């Protein structure tokens, strides 16, 4: 049976090696959705090269570094999961481009509203990777400092974070703060009522919010064809009077430009934008998922040329922005940042439940104080054992 790539090998090779390139292999499922999507890396070689040469070199390298950090995090997380050091983990392998771009295209004061699939974006705001890894370990140290990084707590229920993003953006405008908010969602999330209410409200009040919909064409085992009749998610924006941008999700430069354009609109008072990043889920839904049950791994592999790290690497190299060795070094640097992470996880002391109970309310109610947390003081000779 086909397997997804081993951790640390890329792209998603199984047998036949594939070459990173301008687009997915011929016949790749859902590749037609990429038509009309903005791209830099998908242009003819010479155009890509001239576009990349026009980028400030440091900005391009920063994007690559951000992607490399995300990849290093993701690979490490998968290993940690297999080692039993963290619990079930939703890999974002293949989403590094859009995620890195979304953070770097915004300012430090802008708000991000991640889902379970963007747990590492907070690291691009300076949060130690240990924190999100502790989240997947089920350790309360996994909750990052929301106000410091302006990244909301990871939102597990699908689409429930999107109204929050609207409220933050709208509220900031009401308070005269110059900031935008970005809410992440998947193709599946667009089917949920909260997506709808968020988009409608944002449009009506003109909230400076960006809905970044990562259309990876799958919601666990549910293909986009079974999720919506309108697989070009951007088309849904018109129902709210929201402009939309379609962009190649595996193209960090195009994604950067798309988010930046949306942010510019928001900042200049033009309200919300929906950015549809068109990609394909290159890996399983998460470590507990078994995609061979529901999709054809052979044809999935036709998307391997789009794997964003290698694709970006080759394009930057071809454009002469950086040498292959320089880029490899960035990758190594990113991986090195995590070298002691397994140890750091293990050595993070457990938190007593009494301490957690004291974090629920500003003033801890009597039922949650240490003396009563397990049970009220019982009559008779008993009491907590």
């Amino acid at each position: 049976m086909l397997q997804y790539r081993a951790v640390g090998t890329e792209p998603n090779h199984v047998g036949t090696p594939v070459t990173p390139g301008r687009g997915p292999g011929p016949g790749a499922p859902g590749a037609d959705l990429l038509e009309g999507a903005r791209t830099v890396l998908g242009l003819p070689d010479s155009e890509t090269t001239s576009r990349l040469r026009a980028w400030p070199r440091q900005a391009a390298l920063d994007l690559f570094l951000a992607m490399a950090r995300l990849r290093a995090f993701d690979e490490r997380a998968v290993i940690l999961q297999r080692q039993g050091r963290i619990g079930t983990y939703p890999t974002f392998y293949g989403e590094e481009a859009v995620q890195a771009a979304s953070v770097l295209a915004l300012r430090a004061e802008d708000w991000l509203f991640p889902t379970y699939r963007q747990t590492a974006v907070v690291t691009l705001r300076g949060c130690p990777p240990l924190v999100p890894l502790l989240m997947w370990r089920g350790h309360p140290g996994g909750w990052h400092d929301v106000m410091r990084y302006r990244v909301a707590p990871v939102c597990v229920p699908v689409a429930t974070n999107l109204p929050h993003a609207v409220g933050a953006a709208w509220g900031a405008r009401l308070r005269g703060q110059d900031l935008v908010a970005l809410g992440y969602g998947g193709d599946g999330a667009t089917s949920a009522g909260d997506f709808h209410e968020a988009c409608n409200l944002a449009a009506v009040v003109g909230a400076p919010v960006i809905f970044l919909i990562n259309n990876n064409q799958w919601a666990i085992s549910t293909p986009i064809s079974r999720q919506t009749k309108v697989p070009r998610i951007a088309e849904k924006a018109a129902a709210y009077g929201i402009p939309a941008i379609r962009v190649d999700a595996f193209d960090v430069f195009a994604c950067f430009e798309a988010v930046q354009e949306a942010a510019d609109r928001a900042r200049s008072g033009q309200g919300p934008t929906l950015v549809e990043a068109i990609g394909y889920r290159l890996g399983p839904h998460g470590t507990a998922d078994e995609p061979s049950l529901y999709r054809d791994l052979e044809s999935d592999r036709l998307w391997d040329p789009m794997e964003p790290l290698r694709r970006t690497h080759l394009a930057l190299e071809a454009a002469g922005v950086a040498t292959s060795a320089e880029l490899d070094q960035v990758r190594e640097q990113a991986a090195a940042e995590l070298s002691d992470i397994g140890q750091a996880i293990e050595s993070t002391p457990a938190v007593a439940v009494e301490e957690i109970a004291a974090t629920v309310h500003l003033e801890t109610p009597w039922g949650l104080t240490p003396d009563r947390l397990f049970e009220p003081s019982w009559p008779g000779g008993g009491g907590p054992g």
Partner: protein
Amino acid sequence: MSDLVEVNMVEAICRGLGQLLEGDQESLLLGEDIGANGGVFRATAGLRGRFGEERVVDTPLGEAGFVGAAIGMCLVGLHPIVEIQFDAFVYPAFEQLISQAARFRWRTRGAYGLPLVVRIPYGGGTRAPELHSDSPETLFSHMPGLRVVVPSDPLSAGEMLVAAAELGDPVIFLEPKRMYRRGRQAVPQTFQPADLDRAVIRRPGTDLTVIAYGAMIEVADAAAQQLEQDGVSARILDLRSIYPLDRGAILAAAEETGRVMVVHEAARHCGLGAEVAALLQEEVADRLLAPTLRVTGMDMPFPLSQNEDDALPSVGRVLAAAHSMLDY
């Protein structure tokens, strides 16, 4: 007494909201039809005119959307006060409240709370159509992380509203709509914040205690008056906070009167009456002179208006429970 003003409950709430908008530039109101219309109960009457449409905001439909947005607003320093039009229309926002608002402080390891108030006119007795008479307090108090409070008269409505807005954690503020226009009370021009942790003895008494809240205080009071004529001294404890409970006041009632009953409109099964009965068992079983009884709504959908009086706890049922306890 020129600093007092006679108001009914809905006016008190409106004044409290005005006071908050006046005193706190970061506060704002969100909800359906609260602007020009002043709310379907007129709880925001006149506020749009005074504070403008950026502070008294008519939202589109979609309770999940605007409750969710209010959560987001808190992150950028606003203090939203949301109106849900009627009790049963909070359910679309249930996930936003239970899985999101309730968990924010916990998700920040205690560091940050959401200064969010969700006002919900609730309960029966107004001859309203279906799904306009629900009592959802148990839902919000069972699922952890929210404060749930219920005022019972104009003064407590104003004082508790002001306190809720200052609390720094999300508060479900349930307004017994049956009491909205049930009489006036002299209240100060400016409300002082109530101590939300404290239940209040509405009537002193030594023979038994009726624990109630919201519109049921009135029922309890009518019953207590009748009991007094029979020589029975009934204490009325107005809980005010459904979560957390004022444990001290409840235990004191049991210890001092020996008999406790609980009256609420919400369904009986796993309602607040059950919680009080269980708490008394655990803590002061040996001080009870009679079992704790419950006079509650029925375990069925709240009836259409022709039958609502049958389903609402009545003076008669409170008296019957009192006599059952006294005769025990």
